[in-house]
């Protein structure tokens, strides 16, 4: 099953070449979506669990992306 993960090189955070290399690897692993967050040296990708294992084996730090929700309560009372 595919999920979204944040992936970054353990050693050299934010080095452009490292991220290029990571993106190539993600393409090889069949990632269905890839987005680079350059300012924190991290790549977000949607991959399966097998790919996560391979990324971790190669020394990448991998953590799951979470769902965020709007923080309001109660019914609205439109008053026009």
């Amino acid at each position, binding site marked *: 099953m595919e999920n979204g993960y944040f992936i970054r090189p353990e050693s050299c955070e934010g080095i452009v070449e490292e991220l290029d290399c990571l993106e190539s690897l993600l393409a090889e692993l069949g990632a269905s979506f890839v987005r680079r967050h350059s300012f924190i040296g991290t790549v977000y990708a949607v991959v399966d669990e097998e790919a996560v294992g391979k990324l971790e084996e190669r020394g990448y730090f991998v953590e799951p992306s979470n769902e965020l*929700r709007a923080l309001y*309560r*109660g019914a609205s009372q439109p008053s026009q």
Partner: protein
Amino acid sequence: MKNADYRLELKRRNHLRKSIEECRPGGSLELIVEVDGRKKDRAVSVIEGFGKIRHVYDFIDYVSFECDFRDAYGIANVSTRGYSELSRALRRVEASSVFHAPKTVEGCRVELWNLSCIGAYEARGYASGAGIKIAVIDTGVDYSHPELSGRFGRVKGYDFIRSNDEPVDMNGHGTHVAGICAGTDYGVAPGSTLYSLRFLDELGSGSESDAIASVEWCLENGVHIANMSFGSSLASSAFEQACYVAAENGLVLVAAAGNDGGEYASYPAAFGESVIAVAAVDRYKRHAEFSNMFITNDVSAPGVGIESSYLGGSYAVLDGTSMAAPHVSGSVALAIEVLASGSVNDLLERTCEEIGYDREVFGAGLVRADRMVAEAVKPGFYGLVDMIKSIAW
């Protein structure tokens, strides 16, 4: 018919008669008619012969339509010759009323308790947030809303869900939040410039990756304040790192403390120093029972029964720490506009009104836009007030 019902019916008839009389010849009028629910389709087709249908309501047996002055007169007196078919289709004819937001005699809207409570009206005498950019990272914003249309420039922001630059709200939450930040009458900083960064969907949920991309957009576009009225009990170190880097680069991040009501962490509010975490209080400055109590809470702001802009040009009342956070974003915008030197985060906490001793519940206290602006213009002003108070004590 009971007396009360009779009086109401009489009022409706008078309203209809008056509306028709006030309608200029050649002008049009919107009518609401009650129809037989079992013959609704037939009634609609008859009405179409007299005017333009506006709404056929599913949940009630009413239809609204627009017609010209002459037909409105005839329909109101359905026994008049030529309207016999219509008279069989209709049960009751009423004029559609026009609703307005309340106004005072000076032409301004009535004072809103939440803005009074934080001293926003006084603060707006000295600053409006002019030149300050606030990004509402949320469900999008209805930027055609009369409260908000003047706040947006050519660039509206970005929609990270649909990957386009039309971040329109389809939930209502973001429009409400934006109205509190900078609405013309309902907002704290009506002179500021707004950007809508849409990453929460119609149901109010979204991914961390899109939230991070929104923060990145703020850095790339010189945004001063990012309002984040959303959260989760879990967060990645990537999002924490994003907030840290953004704060280090001068972006003021304001987040809602969470609505779980207990001693729970909600992220990004609980990320610590990089994010200003805002708890909610009610109109009596009491802790809102739903507002999270956590060590990272920085300040409190009104979050119960808050009226602001909503979808389709309307207004709505909502509760939540989502509503508290934009009071702080707006106050920070006012202060930054006039801040001579120093950190706005320090200024925010130093000028809070003490409303309780429990830091995990209230943070440093209630945000006070008036004190922030006064202190930003003249550093030491509120320190002096405190000193005089302590001597008097």
